[in-house]
């Protein structure tokens, strides 16, 4: 019996020590809920060390789909939300969950498809026409289906193309409910079309026979915005640290850092914080 | 502090044990008093082990009373039991005794001395640090005896302590029991070996089909048995 008590005391002490250890490290840090595209493309890996060097603030990025990231902000589990779905962002601010939306940068979506191009859309600059052709050909198409910014953009493009995807979808339209990477992996494995953000595509390594089929359409423009979670809703939000991250992102230094990030010599994100109405 | 009440005599009154509708034990009256060892003999299945377990308080009778020193709910602090096949804890010989001492609330300070004494008593002084389960059958039986004695019992109940031992090992156990009895500890031992009963016991209880057939002094039991069953049992006839 005494031995058991000893074990409990030792165990509990070790535990208390172990759990108290990382309290110290939590001093100067914020949590940013962002999207898979900014993390998987490596952008944050480039930005955060620069920001940390300047301010000493640890930025902890949780990567989720845009919808989920906004939810995380709504629950107060993040200090800053950094996503790409403008209408949802504006609603987030209007509902009082975010303080103010600031435009940060953009990149664009590209339609990825197999080299064999069964829907004959390769080289087109008209995304809606391409989508209609895919539908008509019944060529396999992977949808994120996860309420992410990319998913929202895809649904919006179907709508502009005049396709009621909820009604028209057949076995060719595969809704996987997963992140960008998983969607690209699935497309690669099944030679399907998929809408992706350029950043993730450029840093994606398991391409197989996939290539860019459609790019350059103005409607493929993809704007990123950043918001501080409203401290009036969630008192624990690290207002000052979070705001300094936002301020840095839209400062000349932050904007330059974004422009400087390249994969294979190609710029992934285009800063536009100073462009009115972005 | 006053001396604890004595747990003796051990008395059975109208004690019955039933399993389903089978009657395992049915004792009108039996008194086991302090003094020389009591041997409980009888063929297999006669209820010897059940009687012993009830005497220890490990088993509650279906009906009737069992009392220790006149009390029904006497604490079992000064009773000890040696099972026919004792189970050694997965520890050293010394730790096995230490465990029994600790569970009998013997203060830590005196345990070391008691362990040496008990190991010496059962002739296992050299095996102190040996894992108990690595000992031979006879050694384990003696260690179990030391463990039982660690409880400083006034009543020691032993279930066939020599049944699975060769003659030399059995003699070693019997010698210890004689020594223990000499210290005033009341021994109740079940056995189907009449030799053991003859050598050790002051009185003998013959059980047959759960009933006490005869309870008398050892000298009388072996020379002038009163019942037919006792005569036949001693003659080596099969009592069924």
């Amino acid at each position, binding site marked *: 019996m005494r031995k058991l008590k000893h074990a409990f005391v030792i165990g509990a002490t070790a535990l208390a020590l172990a*759990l108290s250890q*990382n309290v110290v490290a939590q001093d100067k840090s914020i949590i940013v809920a962002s999207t898979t595209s900014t993390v998987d493309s490596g952008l944050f890996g480039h930005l955060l060390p620069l920001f940390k060097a300047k301010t000493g603030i640890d930025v902890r990025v949780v990567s989720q789909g845009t919808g989920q990231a906004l939810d995380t902000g709504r629950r107060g589990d993040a200090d800053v939300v950094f996503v790409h779905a403008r209408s949802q962002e504006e609603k987030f601010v209007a509902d009082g969950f975010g303080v103010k939306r600031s435009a940060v940068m953009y990149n664009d979506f590209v339609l990825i498809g197999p080299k064999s191009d069964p829907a004959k859309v390769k080289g087109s600059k008209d995304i809606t026409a391409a989508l209609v052709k895919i539908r008509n050909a019944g060529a396999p198409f992977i949808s994120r289906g996860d309420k992410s910014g990319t998913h929202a953009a895809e649904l919006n493009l179907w709508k502009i193309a005049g396709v009621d995807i909820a009604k028209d979808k057949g076995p060719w339209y595969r809704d996987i409910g997963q992140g960008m990477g998983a969607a690209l992996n699935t497309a690669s494995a099944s030679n399907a079309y998929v809408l992706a953000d350029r950043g993730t595509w450029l840093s994606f*390594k*398991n391409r197989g026979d996939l290539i860019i089929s459609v790019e350059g359409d103005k409607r493929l423009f993809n704007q990123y915005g950043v918001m501080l979670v409203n401290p009036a809703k969630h008192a624990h939000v690290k207002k000052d640290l979070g705001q300094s991250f936002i301020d840095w992102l839209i400062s000349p230094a932050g904007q330059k850092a974004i422009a400087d990030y390249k994969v294979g010599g190609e710029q992934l994100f285009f800063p536009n914080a100073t462009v009115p109405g972005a | 502090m006053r001396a604890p009440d004595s747990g003796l005599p051990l008395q059975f009154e109208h004690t019955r044990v039933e399993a389903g509708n089978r009657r395992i034990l049915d004792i009108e009256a039996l008194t086991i008093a302090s003094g020389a060892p009591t041997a409980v003999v009888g063929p297999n299945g006669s209820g010897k082990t059940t009687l012993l377990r009830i005497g220890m308080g*490990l088993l509650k009778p279906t009906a009737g009373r069992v009392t220790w020193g006149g009390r029904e709910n006497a604490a079992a602090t000064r009773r000890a039991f040696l099972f026919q096949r004792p189970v050694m804890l997965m520890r050293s010989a010394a730790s096995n005794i230490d465990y029994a001492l600790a569970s009998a609330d013997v203060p830590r300070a005196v345990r070391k001395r008691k362990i040496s004494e008990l190991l010496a008593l059962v002739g296992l002084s050299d095996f102190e640090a040996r*894992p108990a*389960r690595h000992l031979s059958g006879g050694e384990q039986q003696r260690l179990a005896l030391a*463990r039982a004695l660690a409880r400083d019992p006034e009543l020691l109940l032993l279930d066939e302590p020599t049944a699975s031992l060769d003659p030399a090992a059995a003699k070693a156990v019997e010698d210890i029991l004689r020594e223990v009895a000499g210290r005033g500890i009341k021994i109740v031992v079940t056995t189907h070996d009449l030799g053991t009963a003859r050598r050790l016991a002051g009185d003998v209880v013959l059980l047959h089909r759960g009933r006490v057939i005869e309870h008398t002094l050892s000298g009388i039991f072996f020379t002038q048995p009163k019942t037919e069953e006792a005569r036949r049992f001693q003659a080596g006839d099969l009592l069924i």
Partner: protein
Amino acid sequence: MNMPASVCIFSEELTYAVTNAIKFRGVEIVFLSAFWMLITGDPALYRIIGLSLYVSLTATLIAALVGLPLGALLALKEFRGRIAAVVFVNALMGMPPVVVGLAVFLLLSRSGPLGSLGILFTPRAMIIAQAILITPIIAALARQTLADLWVQYRDELAAMNVSTAGSVATLLWDGRFSLLTALLAGFGRACAEVGAVIVVGGNIDGFTRTMTTAIALETSKGDLPLAIGLGAVLLVIVIAINAIAWAIRRTGERLAGAA
């Protein structure tokens, strides 16, 4: 504390280059990429391994403190509904990690009942989730092991007047080497699961990224060789820990005479 990210990106690309260069020589060579990182002492990889071990070992410790006595009690205490309790604990072994993760997430979310602790997306949240996940495993396996031991010990301990708490302690102590198997099963499950830690930890680079969440991330980035390589490294670590534990068990059993 935090390594510059450029270092990990550099080594990641180096690894990728190496992997690509040797890929054509055979599938098995893809494993080399992660081992390459291991050998070259990639700090990001070591931090990930360190966090995985820290989280899973701490979770195992907590689960042991709860699960072992619980298993012992289920083995020896006779009470109404014991069989139902045993069935229940056994069933909980099959709990999907995601469900546990989600429950802990809702509990620890700022909008949840324990939100004020502010530990969502920290290693502590991951420890809690894993501890909850594996406590039933440890309890159920401990019960099984100790029930066998209890059959042997029950009468002896009863004759020595040992209390329930004392019996629990005795079973745990004397069964300690066999119980190692239960602990290893729990630890293995904790190490291998991804569903719970990714939900409550958030897979934050340098903070809550473990072996399994890193594997999930590399998979989603399409870097399948690196993902498989990391999986192989994880496997090697788990095998090493199991080997050590078995060695301890064998030696301990021999010395204690339990075998």
